[in-house]
């Protein structure tokens, strides 16, 4: 394996002693190493060092590719934000006909990775998809100047794995992310929630407690296979304004479909509950509703006030009599109701700090709440009605999907001056669901009513692109676009887990699973 250490030693020794024999020895040593590496990595070309290191060896390493004679060389500075993958900063001279694969092989060499990691390369916030030469031509850059290249773990294109069909539109999806067993919780527009295994078996279905569509469903405690006693619980909420807590014990027989009954009903909202967000550390959850409120609840019923369901008039009672009698539950009220919004609140999420929460609304604002005091910490007003939000904790950013077909990145901290740091364009309809990648803190996925799921990389946000009317001068495009296998239909929810991949649900009544090939390998390598 050649890497920086031996090389520098060799160059120093050769220059020091200027001994011909020594030189030959080192060069032959290199070539033998190279051969080994070629075998190991099954390279499609050889890297050749300049055979004689010049008497005054500069810091720059010269690398030759195949038929590189016709191509000029360019000096690049490789860098990464991933500390585990960092290499010593050293300028390299590479032929400009190298493409991503060549660069990736080079970085793998430098890293001495036992198994090659696919890398992607960002130059000035843009993914390198052509050869460097073509990039330079397109960007109008000279090969004389050194190029700063950032390498990132490659986000593999998510290929279609499969899909499971249900009998109505699916509004939301949540994957239980335990390592041993995987269950996909989906909320359906027919008023039920379903738990589906990765093999497509419906493990459980809720009883028709919700009189109308379920808009949101989220796991609270996750099922573990093996131990039958382990109880899982989840929340659902929907158009009928109530939130229900369900407990679920996985059955021994996976083909059997369990009927799950609710234990607690949470009643406060006067209109559709749009989203639920559960924080395991505090056992609290947030719900956002079209009645312009965000409610804070606890999963511990003893902490909540008991309420009675609103009295229905004769007309309402008559209507309800016709439907099947729902099971009776404990009715509980909220810990707090946050009402700073003036329009339907589309989503409320917990911050990394469990006492803080963010909510986005159709009134175009992102509001930071302090859950302890139920006060509004800050309000950031954007240009468009917002439909979804997710945090990018490593970057201190919030990504918000808007009804105006784009995703905006915001810094929610009080200290930041700008309302909006970047605009990601590409969707052709409202962005209703955002989920961050389990693998990279820079990557997240978005589901939109235009029927696509797109994967974005925050690093791929270029400052050179036109900012548009409402951007702050930065915008970017998506890495990948996942379309619905069934054709068209809105996407209502996405979730992304390491084990399952990217799961999206929508109007086509299908749970669609996509996964980047080779992701598992990366995962394994990371854990080792």
């Amino acid at each position: 394996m050649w890497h920086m250490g031996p090389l520098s030693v060799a160059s120093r020794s050769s220059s020091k002693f200027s001994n011909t024999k020594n030189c030959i020895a080192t060069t032959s040593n290199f070539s033998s190493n190279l051969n080994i590496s070629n075998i190991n990595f099954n390279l499609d070309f050889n890297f050749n060092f300049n055979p004689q290191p010049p008497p005054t060896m500069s810091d720059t390493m010269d690398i030759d590719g195949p038929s590189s004679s016709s191509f000029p060389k360019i000096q690049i500075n490789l860098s990464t934000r991933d500390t585990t993958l960092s290499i010593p900063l050293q300028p390299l001279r590479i032929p400009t006909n190298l493409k991503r694969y060549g660069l990736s092989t080079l970085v793998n060499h430098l890293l001495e990775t036992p198994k090659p990691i696919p890398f992607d390369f960002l130059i000035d916030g843009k993914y390198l998809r052509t050869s460097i030469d073509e990039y330079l031509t397109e960007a109008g850059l000279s090969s004389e100047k050194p190029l700063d290249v950032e390498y990132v773990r490659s986000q593999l294109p998510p290929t279609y794995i499969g899909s499971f069909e249900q009998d109505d539109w699916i509004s939301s999806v949540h994957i239980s992310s335990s390592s041993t067993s995987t269950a996909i919780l989906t909320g359906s527009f027919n008023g039920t929630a379903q738990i589906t295994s990765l093999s497509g078996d419906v493990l459980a279905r809720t009883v028709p407690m919700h009189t109308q569509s379920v808009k949101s469903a989220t796991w609270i405690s996750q099922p573990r296979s093996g131990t039958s006693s382990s109880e899982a619980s989840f929340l659902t909420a929907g158009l009928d304004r109530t939130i229900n807590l369900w407990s679920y014990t996985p059955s021994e027989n996976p083909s059997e479909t369990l009927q799950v009954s609710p234990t607690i009903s949470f009643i406060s909202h006067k209109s559709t509950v749009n989203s639920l967000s559960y924080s395991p550390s505090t056992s609290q959850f947030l719900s956002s509703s079209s009645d312009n409120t965000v409610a804070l609840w606890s999963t511990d019923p003893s902490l909540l006030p008991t309420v009675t369901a609103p009295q229905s008039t004769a007309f309402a009672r008559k209507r309800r009599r016709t439907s099947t009698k729902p099971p009776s539950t404990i009715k509980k009220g909220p810990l707090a109701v946050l009402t700073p919004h003036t329009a339907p609140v589309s989503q409320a999420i917990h911050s990394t700090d469990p006492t803080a929460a963010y909510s986005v609304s159709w009134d175009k604002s992102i509001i930071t709440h302090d859950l302890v005091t139920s006060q509004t910490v800050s309000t950031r007003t954007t240009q468009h009605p917002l439909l979804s939000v997710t945090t990018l904790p490593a970057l201190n950013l919030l990504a918000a999907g808007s009804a105006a077909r784009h995703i905006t990145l915001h810094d929610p901290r009080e200290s930041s001056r700008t309302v909006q740091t970047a605009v990601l364009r590409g969707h052709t309809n409202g962005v209703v669901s955002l989920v961050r990648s389990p693998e990279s803190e820079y990557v997240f996925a978005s589901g939109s009513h235009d029927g696509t799921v797109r994967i974005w990389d925050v690093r791929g946000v270029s400052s050179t692109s036109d900012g548009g009317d409402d951007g702050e001068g930065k915008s970017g495009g998506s890495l990948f676009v996942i379309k619905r296998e069934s054709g068209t239909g809105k996407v209502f929810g996405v979730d992304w887990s390491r084990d399952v991949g990217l799961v999206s649900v929508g109007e086509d009544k299908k749970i669609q699973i996509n996964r980047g090939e080779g992701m598992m390998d990366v995962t394994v390598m990371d854990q080792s």
Partner: protein
Amino acid sequence: MTTKSTTRKRSRAEAEAEKPVLSSEDEFEIPEINGDEDSSDDSDFTAGDEDTDEEEEFSSGAEDEEDEEELDSDEVPSEDEGSPKENGAANDEVSDDEKEEPADNVKVVTGADGNPRYIYPEIEPVYDSDDTDAEETNTIGNIPLEYYENYPHIGYDINGKRIMRPAAGKALDTLLDSIELPKGWTGLVDKNSGAALNLTEEELEIVKKLQRSEITDDSFDPYPDMVEWFTSKVEQMPLSSAPEPKRRFVPSKHEQKRIMKIVKGIREGRILPHKPQAEASQEPEFYDIWADDAPPKPDHVMNIPAPKLPPPTHDESYNPPAEYLPSDKEKKEWEEQDPEDREKNYLPRTHKALRLVPGFNGFIGERFERCLDLYLAPRVRRNKLNIDPASLLPKLPSPDDLKPFPTTCATVYRGHEGRVRSVAADPTGVWVATGGDDGTIRVWEILTGRQVWKLKVSSDEAVDSVTWRPTAEGRILAAACGNEILLMVPPIFDFEEENQGKEILSAGYGYAANRQGKKEAPGTWSKADAAHEEEGVVVTITVRKTVKYIAWHRRGDYLVSVSPEDVRRAVCIHRVSTHLSQTPFKEKSVTKGIPQRVQFHPSKPLLFVATKRYIKIYDLAKAELSKTLKPGARWISSIDIHPQGDNLIVGSYDKRLLWHDLDLSTKPYRTLRYHDKGIRSVSFHRGGFPLFCSSSDDGTVQVFHGRIYSDLMENALIVPLKVLKGHKITAHLGVLDVDWHPKQPWLFSAGADGTARLWN
């Protein structure tokens, strides 16, 4: 002889000049002198000989030259020559002795030496004979004068006498002479005589005149008196009263003769009037190859010269440079373009040689097109107006500056079978209700497009109009189906809200019971039937004819309905709180036209009734007609009032959208003709965005920016923003109804294709 005498005379004169006698008087006194001298001559005669001897002595002795000379010059010639003459005269008697000789007037006397002496007669001192001023001729010949430098004389005259050196003053005299330059001094010395050559008075005068650039002739007068031959003065009377000569007005016969001669010559071919110029052919010939080689057309009103084609460019070459060749992408783009949209009607192509260029395959087609052009589009001379077309356009802001406004279709609400007649957004902005030809009322979730509630009202009648009660409390939906108006609370709301709405609706039952039988009411209020009641319908109002349109009052207590088929009671106002219906107009005052739409004013107690041609504004408080608007449309389809209440938009089936400013006049302020077919519905945004829209049977919804300024002097700004296309035209019907989201710049449209759409 003459010379002799002259020299003698001169020398005598000089001698006399020695005497204190005025030399000038010499000549006049000559006779006297002569007489005197004659006597003296005789006495002097002998002395003359002595003188010569003395002369010789003097000549040997150089000193005292001048004195001697003076004496000499005086004495010798006078002695010498004067004496013979006088002698002759005196010796006239003596000469007889002497034989001979020459002329009779010459006396010959015998001299002292015995030789005959010829005594010539005295010369008459007439002017001619006077040669005193003749120069003494030096006879030394052509020898340099300096040979005589050492001698007192400078040569010999014709008589062999010495010519004495002219007196030259001493050095002091010379200096004095040089200081006091005599008049006419030139500094020149006569070569022959050695005398100073001075200019005479006349000569000096001539020189002066030359210096002054004057004519030297004294006789010339440079400033003669002017003789005015031709005066500038116009005489009052002609100098001559003779009649005009004939030649002034009769053609000249002579000239005619000459012309006829030429004409005859031309006719006979002797004279060629325009001889071809031989020189022209010799010049090298250059041609302007770009010049139009067609012969110039006669100058005629209808003659329009063909436009000059631009010279060919590089890409028209058979082998253009590589940069002019299109890339594959450009080629594809070009091919995909519509032939009319193409910038060029050819693609640059390269051929290795000119002979490899194929024939033009579009030849026939192009010829045909040209002929068609000539046939269909004859060129017409048109007076060119030199106006920049851009300056004619009103200065409107760019639509980009007027964001947000709906641009794309976000959601399609699918479910209705048949046309969707009406669409209405819930005041909270969460739900949207539609009514359609299938007799159903449906409520949808706005963003997801999920139908959350449906009510089948009728199996054969269409739901023509749905509208939400525009108040914060009590979610009440009114729908018109057939001749019934249904007031309902869809069971999608919170129970509290639902109950509240139902209470509002059922509060008027008692009133209705009290009033019954009093008067024939235009509408009958009744409880909904059981099937409907379960679905949330509370009250049904039955009127006589089909209700086409219903509209709420802003407070939600009154509901106005239009049944155009009912001639007498087309407009009914229904009061929810008392369950009463009434017609606002007395039967007489009912307008002639058929009411199409009605609308309450958003703040004042005014009712707008749109008939086919006019819009009548009734003051409900005073119960009178306050104003009639004349939009000029043939058939008004819909109206909407701006939320501030001072402006009105009118849509008409004759494709026009009319903006009325109620403050201005009864005529529309602005007419917008953008639709291809009749307008079905118009709507103002009521949530704070300055937007309005119109929907049409051409399947489009057009969105406009309509800003109203608080300044009364400033008229409304109307900017067309966007044409929303998406609805399909079904049976010649396009978009039947539009409504705005109450808070967002989102637009709902109901189409004849069975869908409703959300645009954002």
